[in-house]
């Protein structure tokens, strides 16, 4: 699967779960795994860090 921003190859582990964030190794864009059906994955753009994020 390739990055929609820069077309680099994304490294996604086999055991990755829905909701996990995948970062592009080249451009740094973050994607969230929106759904997973076997080896078929759907990615969406991850939310950017919000003012209220944290512990």
């Amino acid at each position, binding site marked *: 699967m390739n990055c929609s921003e820069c077309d680099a190859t994304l490294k996604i582990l086999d055991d990755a*779960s*829905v*909701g*996990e*964030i995948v970062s592009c190794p080249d451009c740094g864009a973050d994607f*969230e795994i929106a759904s997973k059906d076997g080896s078929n994955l759907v990615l969406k753009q*991850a*939310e950017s860090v*919000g*003012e*209220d*994020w*944290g*512990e």
Partner: protein
Amino acid sequence: MSKVCIVFDRLRSEEKMLQKEALDLGCDTSMLDAKITQINTDSKKDDYDLGDVVLERCVSYFRGLHFTASLEFMDVSIINTYDVASICGNKMIMTLRLKKHNIPTPKTYFSFSSESAFENLEKVGYPLVIKPIIGSWGRGVMPLRDKDTAEAIMEIRDINDGPHDRIYYLQELIQRPPRDIRVITVGDEPIAAMYRKSSDGFKTNIALGADPELCEITKEMEDIAVKASKAMGGGILGIDMMEDEKKGLVVHEVNNTVEFKGLARVAKRNIPKAMVEYALTCIRK
């Protein structure tokens, strides 16, 4: 068999650790993404896969807080409770709660306009540390060492003009070693602690690259952490302390959705396991 539901908005290794420990303890688990969950005033607990107890783990404070309110409306057992989350999520309310319960905490000044905050600074003297009342990972926390810096920061706050920017939280700068202490409490019991060392500057947030190191929990730390946890209302918390050269340990923050990835690697106790075990004790009979 009990079922533990983990509510998240960004699945991090902490949430996966909690799920693994719940499974290892023989529980069923469900993972619920708050971002795509719809709730209404007729919603019932059974409309969702919420299990017997919920661990709220959203990285967005307001999302987690309001999601918690929705689940409590449905009589779901949730950790932490809305009351605990709302106290810990606002530094001013948290500080007032600490002081009210006689827990040592840095002297803190509250002002409700930039003019008043500036007047207070001039009266008390520099330096003071300014902190946003909402926020984490050290964002917006900075020492005001002189008038020029204070004026610049006040101006930025006035321009931003978010509702919380009008509340000014100014705290004495604690003279301490370049580190602070994070104690994780589960059900009012301290289970692990670490030093967070600042390599550069005065911030010690792990999210900013501070170096974690295992810390033995002393009797003093334990007593203060237990008192702070009880003052907030219990649950699963991260109690942050500084070692004041004159006053000893002071609690400067209590965190609601505690991050534990770094500490879990070196702690003697299994932190996510302790959290799940505690959650199981909170299941409504």
